[in-house]
């Protein structure tokens, strides 16, 4: 443990970038928000290395800073009966749905000194997702002007990010591995009305292991962000 600490504090000076991957299972949205806030503080203080949290949320609709109420399509009663929570997210973007079967990744990274560019960060996250999907022989792509990752004209992964004081990132991406797609009917995803959503399970026509997708994501984070090793 002591050596890990020295690795992470050395990071600014040398090449030893370190990523710690935490697999947390099913985590309520509010709990994940608190955990992220704590890790952002700790990352800023240099107490922990860069983090990648991989988890699932119970059904929840989250509102980004540019969210429009009319993009939540269910009324409150219906939402409650469906057991879907509603949360302000404190990230960029519009309305998003999260639920079981969707793999959510929250990278808590210090972008200093050489990655202080928000657009680059989002393109990098897209790259992570594209590579992970390629490992499953899914050919996905970017679409100019629409952050996220797409298969044909359907969204397979959404991105919404927050950068806190000190270039510390939180929030991140949500990859549809095998979620119940009909729940997306409760929202207009990211305010984009004319395109649907899809999932890896649908594209591949069979079950997909969340654990394997998590492995692939950790691996492509390693490549794209150029980490020396995983803690």
């Amino acid at each position, binding site marked *: 443990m002591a050596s890990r600490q020295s690795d992470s504090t050395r990071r*600014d000076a040398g090449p030893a970038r370190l990523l710690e991957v*935490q697999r947390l299972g099913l985590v309520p949205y509010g709990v994940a928000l608190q955990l992220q806030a704590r890790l952002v503080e700790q990352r800023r203080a240099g107490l922990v290395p860069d983090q990648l949290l991989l988890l699932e949320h119970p059904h929840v609709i989250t509102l980004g800073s540019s969210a429009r109420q009319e993009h939540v399509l269910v009324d409150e009663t219906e939402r409650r*009966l469906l057991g879907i929570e509603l949360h302000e997210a404190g990230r960029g973007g519009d309305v998003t749905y999260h639920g079981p079967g969707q793999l959510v990744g929250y990278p808590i990274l210090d972008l200093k000194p050489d990655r202080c560019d928000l657009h680059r960060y989002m393109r990098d996250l897209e790259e992570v997702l594209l590579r992970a999907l390629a490992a*499953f022989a899914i050919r996905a792509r970017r679409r100019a002007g629409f952050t996220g990752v797409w298969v044909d004209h359907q969204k397979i992964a959404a991105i919404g*990010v927050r950068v806190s004081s000190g270039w510390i990132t939180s929030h991140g991406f949500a990859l549809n591995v095998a979620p119940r797609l009909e729940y997306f009917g409760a929202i207009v995803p990211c305010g984009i009305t004319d395109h649907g959503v899809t999932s890896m399970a649908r594209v591949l026509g069979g079950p997909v292991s969340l654990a394997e997708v998590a*492995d692939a994501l950790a691996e492509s984070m390693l490549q794209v962000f150029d980490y020396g090793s995983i803690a």
Partner: protein
Amino acid sequence: MARIDVPMPQMGESIAEGTVSKWLKQVGDAVARDEPLLEISTDKVDAEIPAPAAGTLAEIVVGEGKTVEVGTVLAYIETEKGAAAKPEAKAPAPPTAEAPKPEAPKGEPKVAPPPAAAAQPPAPARPVREAAPVEAARPAARPAVVAARAEPEPRGDGRTETAEERLRRRSTPLVRRIAAEHGVDLTEIEGTGYAGRVTKQDILSYLEQRARAPVVPARAAAPAAAPVEGVILADHFWEIFHGQVRHPEFPARPADRLEPMDRIRRLTADHMVRAKRVAPHVHSFIEVDFTQIDRIRQKNRSKWEQQGVKVSYTAFVAWAAAQTLLEFPRVNATISGESVLFRGEINVGIAVDLDPGLIVPVVRNADELNVVGIAKRINDLAQRARERKLKPEEIQGATFSITNPGVLGTLVGMPIIPEGTAAILGTGAIEKKPVVMELDGTDVIAIRKRALFSLGYDHRLVDGADAARFLARLKHVLEGFPEDGI
């Protein structure tokens, strides 16, 4: 005293503008250096902008919701000597030379004021803390990937696969497909990927090499044993099991009517299938004598009416169940992964018929309420359930449930255990019945009010004897309800 600009920062090379989404400080507020001052948003990103210097927020130029170009002045901060020394300044900013350098931000080309570090000296400034407090501060999270993978896993051939072999074998499906097509045993390949796993590149260069190398007679039995597709890992198994519920379709006949399920029906349908798939259901029954409780209800009816509360049999049952659960933590628990999750609260879900549809509002901390208290909660929840006015938290978090098919005359039911709980109690119709009882040593036939109860329980967690003890205790609590207990 100096007036410092707070410009819209350049947050990325291709970012030309930003929207002020929220001012975190108001005019007149004191700000510490690097303290978050406002939030801006661009595209899919929210970013906190820290104060470039300590002082007082003197003027806000760009209001919330406005979009401006990079470099536009958003606000002004008045710095004053000694401002940073004010007691409210939190963790006294690291020794980053607090000397007011008004022009500093403009001096540095494009990394101007954004997030703190721009102003910090490059490397050594970061304080290196001691190891012990670090450990304490770390969140109690699961161990990282590598550790999680270390356990050996039994292999098909009976011998235990080493962690290393398993890591190598665990490669992406694409790589596995290539391996299967070419009859390659992945453990033979030196992986360069994450945790030593075999990447696509690895296997392609391996194949290329193999093609060039002279054909070696190859170890006889080996490759066939590669347990790639045959073994279903536990997590994979559960994923298939939990996967989207598919309801079989049936051909419609001419006079039939096909009506799509509404969302609530669909949800209920899926929940019931999943609940029953996962938990092995067992039901046990017991007959409960309600004569005593009936007497108590008669006696107090007018008093309760004056208080405007209707105390149903269900209120007594919920109270007794909560008290009994205190003694049976295993019935107030659930299996979660490889563990048993004992619930810290006793929250009793009460099924309410909406006709059509059903909802299960929750009486929280039912063990802390008396019978009348529970009755009030149930009346309130049931009323608002019918008016569709329940709050989300009022239908979540049940640790045990009660359903009352008896209210419609049913003898008793065998209810399905809601996901994430260990048991559900079904209460049958309360009816007058002739019962053989012993009175002063003589057998007599008496007319008593009786009902059948059924307890549906998850047999993974609750054994038959547990359930029997639970039901016997519940019966005892209900039948022995003290006359003056209200």
